[in-house]
């Protein structure tokens, strides 16, 4: 082989020919950049540009269809004096906190169950993903009917069980409306947690569990000392993603309550949209949307540090 290969004339690179270019592109330092540039351009165009433009808008008095004037941080000062803004901030934190905890606990439970061996396992796993797959607007319209006071299947069941009429106003009572939205968000986000954690569970070597069983560990001890520690990195990352998505949720609220009753369910994203679109105040709207940034930045930095420390 080697003799034959040596006998073959090695094609000399013609000056300025494609071969030199090819060799240049195959250098790792160059090749890696070539691979990175397309997604980078994509990110700059679709994430970076709107983000920077959003910051620029938030520093202007900028009515729709009208030239803006630079006003520094005055929009943020306006927000700080707006009682509804603080109510929106509180709503967003409550919504994100409870929905994320419910999704984390429920999703872990779901993953543990799905990790068992039972008939029609794959079919059931696929079905469990449905809430995540169905477009949110569609599933939310279904929820609108489920919670509709006149047609609510929930209230109907309650009447059957002897609760007095009229049943609870799921979207009419300010507290219940927030509760309902948290529940629906949990319902929608649970499969994301479940499936991701299931993937994590399946990477845990079975021999660890076998060894623990031989040492006399019960199922709780095995969960506490083997499953949970090994699953922590996955739980951490899923939670961070979930916090980001929940914090910036829009569709669910927009379809169900549009922020009502009396702003009890307004989130940053819906409030920003109302101000910018219905109110035609792009600058002020952008400043409300950007108010999400500090909280999300903490989360993202947390993610970055955690990934680095591993």
């Amino acid at each position: 082989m080697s003799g034959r290969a040596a006998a073959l004339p090695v094609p000399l690179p013609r000056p300025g020919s494609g071969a030199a270019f090819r060799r240049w592109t195959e250098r790792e330092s160059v090749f890696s950049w070539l691979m990175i540039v397309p997604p980078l351009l994509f990110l700059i165009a679709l994430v970076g540009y709107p983000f920077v433009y959003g910051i620029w808008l938030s520093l202007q008095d900028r009515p729709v269809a009208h030239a803006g004037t630079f006003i520094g941080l005055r929009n943020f000062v306006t927000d700080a004096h707006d009682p509804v803004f603080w109510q929106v901030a509180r709503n967003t934190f409550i919504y994100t906190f409870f929905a994320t905890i419910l999704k984390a606990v429920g999703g872990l439970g779901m993953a543990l169950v799905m990790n068992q061996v039972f008939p029609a396992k794959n079919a059931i796993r696929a079905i469990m993903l449905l809430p995540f797959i169905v477009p949110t607007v569609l599933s939310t319209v279904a929820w609108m009917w489920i919670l509709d006071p006149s047609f609510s299947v929930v209230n109907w069941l309650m009447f059957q069980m002897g609760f007095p009429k009229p049943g609870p106003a799921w979207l009419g009572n300010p507290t219940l409306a927030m509760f309902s939205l948290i529940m629906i968000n949990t319902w929608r986000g649970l499969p994301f947690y479940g499936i991701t954690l299931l993937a994590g569970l399946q990477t845990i070597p079975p021999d660890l569990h076998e060894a623990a069983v031989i040492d006399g560990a019960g199922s709780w001890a095995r969960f506490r000392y083997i499953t949970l520690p090994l699953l922590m990195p996955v739980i951490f990352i899923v939670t961070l993603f979930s916090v980001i998505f929940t914090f910036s949720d829009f569709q669910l609220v927009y379809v169900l309550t549009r922020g009502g009753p009396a702003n009890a369910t307004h989130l940053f994203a819906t409030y920003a949209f109302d101000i910018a679109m219905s109110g035609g105040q792009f600058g002020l709207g952008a400043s409300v949307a950007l108010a999400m940034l500090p909280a999300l930045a903490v989360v993202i930095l947390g993610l970055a540090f955690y990934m680095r420390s591993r």
Partner: protein
Amino acid sequence: MIGKKYEVFAGSRRDFLKAAAIGAAGSAFGPTAGWSQAKTLGFMHESSFIKPFDEYFQKKLAPAYEKATGVKVNYELTSVGGLQTRVATVAETGSGPDITLNFFTWPFLYNEKYIDVSDIAEEAGKKNGGWYDAAKEAVIVNGNWKAVPFGNVGQIMCWRQDWFHEAGYDKFPDTWEELLEAGTKLKAAGHPIGFELGHGFGDNHGWLYPLLWSYGGREVEPDGKTIAIDSDETAQAVDMARKLFKQTMAEEVLGWTDPNNNKAWLSEQISCTNNAASILFVAKRDFPDIGKVTQHALNPAGPKGRFHILAPWSHSIFTHTEDKEAARAFLRWLMQPEQVGAWYAAADTYYAPFLHGFDNAPMWQSDPRWLPYRDSLATSHLPGWPAPITRASTESVAKYVVVDMFAKACAGASTKDVIAQAKAQLKQIYGQA
């Protein structure tokens, strides 16, 4: 997008590129033939609740105009609720259709991107018996007509004749006090009233602003600066809303958006609501038994009069329109009595004409129950009235300041607190915090 681009190519290369770019943009926004020699106009509307209305334009008006002038009109429909985002995008980017439909106060919001159409509007007024004052309130910005008014999607009272009769009422209560009394009896009989108090677009404003006005309350004085919400009149209106809510309604109305009262009506859950003509329209078509007992009436009066919300439709031409004369010619043609009258009739009075010439049009006789929609025009105003429409008044509506003032009171807060909160919000919005 107007065609006739073949002319431009005699110009410089830059002109050619510009024309090519416009052609490409045009093809992205509709079936415009960027290179053909046919003139086309883009006319943007939101899908109408009344199907025959859109069909009438597509099948009758557009072909008729093309036949008469050779100009093809592309009737571009957005999904329900999608028009404002589209108009904002078109106004911002300066590309897209030439003419658009407006709702609410959009002629004020997009004022700078709309051309002055005073001549068309004034001519249409002359030919059709003159405009209602409400039409002028809806489109005249700084003395110029920035849109040609079309019709009003009125919000009035919708009441169940049979249940009111059982409760001892053969005509609709004339005042809010009387409505409270009737509603209390009706709720006791298992037929509550249902007025939206949530964050919809129409059915909340439809009764809350008129309630406020009918007690003499207002957000801001006509000078557009002096905050006037903190008054005894407002307090009386808020107290009345709370009484109506507590004694005649179910808690759910606090979370309602616009579809809820229609659903509640058609499932026979409520005996009275404030709505556009959609309830009677659907009831007649799909629920004839409910349709027979569905009645309309003007809003109840308060101590300072009777009021209605103005929900105007109008048409504007964008400043980016290439061939403005073609767009003007089309609007002028559309507003001729033959065209506009037939288009109104296609929607069964759903869009109440702003033109006095149609006050006694045959369509009103098709069902006398529609007539209050016509009669409400004389007392209809935009949210924020009697102050002029400004950026601040629009922001107040977008932030639901008035709606939430009433909703919070109904949910249990004190009248003093809700008015103080509304006042603080208005001060901030009007830049006086």
